[in-house]
């Protein structure tokens, strides 16, 4: 068993609200620099930059988890994580069936860029990614579970796009492996209250939209036998000796 530093919520420049510096290559380089072992790429309702991130991470020892930050009909955000690109591709088919037809306004929301592992622009994505899918939180999380993935409610301490703000509490028919608190929720008492109120394990992540967020944002230490999603799953449920360790905060944010 060893400890892995994980950031399970990272946006790339594909998310309209993320800076263009958030290229997969740059994220992986910084991860190496600051000692992050597991990076989940979680763009809003899309995953076109996952391949580039996996290529950029080849030979580095960093595990890239294919993921997505999903927005459901209730305007709840959650992180969906998958074992492999092949499983992710199945999830993408589900998303394609439920995505809105709206076109992004780049001036209002920012650009949505797909790049390769060397930062070359491949495509500007036109469909509006900052919109809710036509499916409920229960339906979406059930599909994640069917695919053997992991669903984690995003930033449940935040006043918007959180399962708590939107629905008041976690509904019984929603299949979540954990809930995430944002960097704004570093108080242990507040974290314990959320853990008790939701009855779910707690993680934190950077939710990075800039390289500064990624470097300074919170990370979760996971105690695993190896770096893989199935091991992460075990750690979230606290089985087989795997478990969630401490939350790491950069000096700038804990001062």
């Amino acid at each position, binding site marked *: 068993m060893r400890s892995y530093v994980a950031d399970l919520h990272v946006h790339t420049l594909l998310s309209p609200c993320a800076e263009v510096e958030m290229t997969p290559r740059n994220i992986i380089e910084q991860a190496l620099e600051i000692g992050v072992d597991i990076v989940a790429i979680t763009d809003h309702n899309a995953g076109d930059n996952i391949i580039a991130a996996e290529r950029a991470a080849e030979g580095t020892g960093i595990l890239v988890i294919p993921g997505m930050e999903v927005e459901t009909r*209730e305007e709840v955000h959650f992180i969906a994580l998958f074992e492999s690109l092949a499983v992710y591709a199945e999830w993408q088919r589900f998303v394609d069936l439920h995505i809105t037809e709206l076109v992004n306004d780049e001036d209002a929301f920012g650009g949505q860029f797909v790049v390769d592992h060397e930062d070359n622009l491949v495509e500007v994505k036109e469909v509006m990614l900052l919109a809710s899918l036509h499916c409920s939180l229960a339906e979406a999380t059930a599909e994640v579970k069917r695919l053997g993935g992991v669903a984690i409610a995003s930033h449940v301490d935040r006043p918007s796009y959180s399962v*708590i703000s939107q629905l*008041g*509490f976690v*509904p019984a*028919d929603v299949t979540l492996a954990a809930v995430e608190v944002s960097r704004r929720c570093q108080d242990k008492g507040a974290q314990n209250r959320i853990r008790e109120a939701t009855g779910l394990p707690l993680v934190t992540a950077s939710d990075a939209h800039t390289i500064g967020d990624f470097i300074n944002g919170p990370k979760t230490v996971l105690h695993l036998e190896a770096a893989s999603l199935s091991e992460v799953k075990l750690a979230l449920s606290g089985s087989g000796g795997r478990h969630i360790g401490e939350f790491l905060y950069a000096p700038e944010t804990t001062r």
Partner: protein
Amino acid sequence: MVRVRELPELLAAAAVATIPEEALEVTLSSGYASDLLSNVMGQAKAEGVWVTMQGHQNVVAVAVLAGLGAVVVAGGTKPDGDAVRKAGQEGLPLFTTELSAFETVGRLYRAGVVGA
């Protein structure tokens, strides 16, 4: 003042489940409008009417918790199956209307239902 039984005509609304007779006679003491359920839990008053565009089953749970007199799901949103079932079980007057949330609140206000 508005009683629950007057809502269908006032708001061109339909009940999604059978409402117990005594619940129909409740006089709505105040109104609240929000789609954020955690906000409603803290703000809505007992025997009030809540206007929302959310059709999730937690709407019913929050309404029962707060002791609301009625909930109107506006803007043509259809409450999901679980919400309809739960409203029936709880005897909660849950209505839908094609009217926008703005128009719904306006008609309630004009009829004498003021903010919580």
